[in-house]
């Protein structure tokens, strides 16, 4: 079986982002970037499926600017066999990315397409579902447990009230939740090996897909800041303050 894994380059999760003065976007120049944490979990899961002999090849795909090649190299340093970079300097919406990934899927014919449940920049939580929809495949979102065998996936999902288990035929899109696994670190020898692994670069136009969007960003602004609070002296003081606000009886 072949696994495709989508990886996204995002502002590092620990960075406190700043909105640009012209309110057009969040500042990304000179900011630390890294692989979206949910994508790392997806790569790790693909590697575990390969190590258990279920999957024979893992291909990492990223859509975006040239710098995304670093993210693909990171996935290959974690163990992915090869990379596909769809180079686009425009910011695509999740639908645009899903259309690109659908074209890549038609060509690469994966049995399982793994990706994160959401990117921590856009927080959309859409791309996997859209890809599955475009391909006519089933989906297992928010996965915290994956069992894959030829022709069938059984996935434990994190849902609002707890967990549920679903089963579906392959090919399938699986999006990863935080609890699925603990991603490995790439070791130095593996980082060196990753430099020699094959990476294909594709122009989205060559895929014959229209990624234009009718959605436009009007503005990006800072959220309202909370009024500075105060420290209370002790629990009795806290209780008095909450009573004064009518929050406790």
């Amino acid at each position, binding site marked *: 079986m072949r696994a495709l894994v989508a990886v996204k380059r995002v*502002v590092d999760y620990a960075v*406190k*982002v700043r909105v640009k003065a012209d309110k057009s976007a*969040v500042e990304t120049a000179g900011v630390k970037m890294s692989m979206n944490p949910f994508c790392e979990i997806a790569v790790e899961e693909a590697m575990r499926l390969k190590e258990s002999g279920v999957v024979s090849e893992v291909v990492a795909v990223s859509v975006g600017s040239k710098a995304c090649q670093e993210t693909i190299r990171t996935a290959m340093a974690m163990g992915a066999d090869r990379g596909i970079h769809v180079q686009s300097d425009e910011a695509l*919406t*999740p*639908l645009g990315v*899903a259309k690109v990934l659908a074209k890549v899927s038609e060509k690469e014919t994966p049995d399982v397409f793994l990706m994160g*449940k959401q990117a921590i*920049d856009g*927080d959309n*939580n*859409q791309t996997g*579902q*859209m*890809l*599955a*929809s475009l391909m006519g495949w*089933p*989906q*297992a*979102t928010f996965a*915290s447990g994956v069992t894959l065998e030829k022709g069938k996936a059984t996935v434990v999902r*994190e*849902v*609002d*009230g*707890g*967990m*549920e*288990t*679903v*089963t*579906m*035929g392959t090919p399938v899109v699986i999006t990863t939740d*935080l*609890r699925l696994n603990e991603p490995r670190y790439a070791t130095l020898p593996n980082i060196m090996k990753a430099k020699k692994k094959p990476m294909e670069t594709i122009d989205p136009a060559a895929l014959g897909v229209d990624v234009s*969007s*009718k*959605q436009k*960003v*009007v503005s*990006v*602004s800072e*959220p309202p800041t*909370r009024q500075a*609070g*105060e*420290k209370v002296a*002790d*629990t*009795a003081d*806290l*209780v008095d*303050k*909450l009573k004064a*606000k009518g*929050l*406790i*009886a």
Partner: protein
Amino acid sequence: RVHRGQHMLASRAVSRLVALRTFSASRSASTLVLATHDNKTLNPATLSAVTAASKIGGDVTVLVGGHECGAVAEAAAKVAGVSKVLKADHPALAKGLPENLDKLVLKVLSDGGHSHLLSATSAVSRGVLPRVAAQLDVDAISDVTEVQSEDTFVRPIYAGNALCTVQSGDAVKVVTARPTAFDKAPAEGGSAAVDDVSSSAVDSGISSFVSEEIAKSDRPDLAAAPVVVSGGRGMKNGENFQMLYDLADKMGGAVGASRAAVDAGYMSNETQVGQTGKVVAPALYIACGISGAIQHLAGMKDSKTIVAINKDPEAPIFQVADHGLVEDLFKAVPELISAVAK
């Protein structure tokens, strides 16, 4: 257009007229709200979705897709502001499998010609709405916190550290709405008709539900509780959460957790508050032994009053707390419990 407007003037209440004037472009708006439910009761998040839909303007139709979900449809019909309820009853819709529910939504949308599809942000709507959007070849708009007009919406990005205003030119706007950002529409006062819609061909047969482990609790739902008491890594183990439950019970609240507490196995996944867990906005949020990482703040910083109990005076949680108590939580929480008990 003018003629149509005049007809509407004649037939509708004044409050409706005001709404139409406010959203002058919305004369043709018609929103299909996908209900959130468990086949027995209507989830209160649906009431927030109806409010979000009413801000778009135009008619609001609620779609209840499920199995033996008659009571849910009846409840939806009583919600103020709902003009019609459509009910589809089929075993394949029982568990909200997206590969089946999307077929139903697409069929109802194409029959009804709705301009908007909206649902409260939930595990089910997150699964279904993007699938529907992709079939319609339109972008989807996730977790909006404000409806500015029928085509313009505000949504948080970067874990709530920026607000993005987006305008959609798509023929159908597909939107999920953050329940905590919209007041609940009154659950009584409406008298919409309930129509059955055909649920033939909703079983795609490509996925099946196997089992579920749903946490049973008499306590209020975390997402809707007026008080939330949350614990983090500082709780040290799962047993210690009992005192947070004791405090929450005295206050009629629910108990939440940080990612650290869930990852350490102190609490189960569905209690996680944050960017990738639940978003809550209670009247009172009490954070115990939680440092206040960006990802946690994303899930609770719209709470009306935030209390932080942490022995580290430098913990970032104090930057958003209205009342900060620098104290060992194992001393402070029991004191709080006995104070509330009095």
